[in-house]
């Protein structure tokens, strides 16, 4: 049994950003951030070229679908899929979507992008979570010139080979953390965002904060012995085959059931 919530990643950020987010995960076969490096940011040439090809295909798809007057640009009126979706595509904020927008690196929604990027930049490609306190210190320590703030140049110098193609990592951090809008990151700004993001107060930065965390509660993932098992929540969904509404419990009857929740981008 598979429950699909189609396009959840793309839904948060539009087509191109979803592709970029996927590339974050794919690109993170790179080493953790090198805070001592003076190397200019480098991404594998083939990754950049591949990304550029994807964006060109994305532009052609968008233009065919939405550029109804064929003038090479898509207006909000032509796009007509909501303000958020349009804003995510209009990366230079000039009010129209053009090929050049897709050529720009994407700023991910910070609530999604920062937990995706930071654990992997500082903890290695397989890091899903990162402890907040050392993460805040590590990010703030990129301040090479000692002015108390991390600039885009200092960040990119440190990221080195870990820069994922198509993603504006520093822009994503700014979108979440830069409270005073000076396009720099201070230690207090970094710490505040990380603390605010840690809704379940477990001291970790993760993509998803546990909504049901309770002190002393049983673990929420893994195997559960029979005496510790909780009832599986029931829900109404729609069969893909015929659109008929159905309850999970009605489908299960008295059989074991596996639910595979997925997103598709």
């Amino acid at each position, binding site marked *: 049994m598979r429950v699909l919530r*189609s*396009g959840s990643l793309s839904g948060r950020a539009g087509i191109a950003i979803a592709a970029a987010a996927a590339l974050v995960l794919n690109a993170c076969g790179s080493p953790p951030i090198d805070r001592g490096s003076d190397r200019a940011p480098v991404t594998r040439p083939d990754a950049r070229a591949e990304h550029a090809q994807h964006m060109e295909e994305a532009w052609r798809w968008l233009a065919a679908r939405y550029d109804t007057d064929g003038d090479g640009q898509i207006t909000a009126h032509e796009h007509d899929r909501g303000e958020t979706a349009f804003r995510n595509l209009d990366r230079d904020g000039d009010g129209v979507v053009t090929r050049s927008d897709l050529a720009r690196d994407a700023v991910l929604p910070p609530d999604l992008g920062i937990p995706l990027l930071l654990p992997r930049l500082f903890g290695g490609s397989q890091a899903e979570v990162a402890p907040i306190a050392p993460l805040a210190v590590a990010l703030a320590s990129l301040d090479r010139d000692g002015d108390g703030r991390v600039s885009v140049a200092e960040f990119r110098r440190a990221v080195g080979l870990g820069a994922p193609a198509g993603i504006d990592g520093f822009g994503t951090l700014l979108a979440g953390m830069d409270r005073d809008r000076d396009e720099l990151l201070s230690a207090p700004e970094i710490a505040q965002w990380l603390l605010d993001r840690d809704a379940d107060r477990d001291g970790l930065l993760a993509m998803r904060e546990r909504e049901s965390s309770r002190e002393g509660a049983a673990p929420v*993932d893994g195997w559960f012995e*029979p005496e510790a098992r909780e009832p*599986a*929540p029931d829900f109404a969904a729609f*069969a893909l085959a015929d659109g008929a509404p159905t309850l999970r419990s009605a489908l299960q009857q008295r059989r074991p059931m*596996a*639910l595979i929740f997925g997103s598709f981008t």
Partner: protein
Amino acid sequence: MIEEPLTLEERCENAHHCKEALGLGVIPALIDGLDNAAERAYEAWPNRIVLIDADGRIAWRSKPGPLGFVPIELNAAIQREVKRVRALTENR
């Protein structure tokens, strides 16, 4: 290209693409409503796997995806549950 669906019909269309692209023809698919009730009930975003026993209780749940989404762990959980139920049956 996949866009954020604005209607249930668009969500179903995306799901059809998903089934074809991933070769999931044999697995029955359910589409969560636009209120994402199933996703919220199981804290399933962006992806997760859950095994429910025959009594309707959660026997096993994966860590949150994407990195926690490991299908082979479902296989191990199923084997463990089968073994548990078989032992119960034999002991009666």
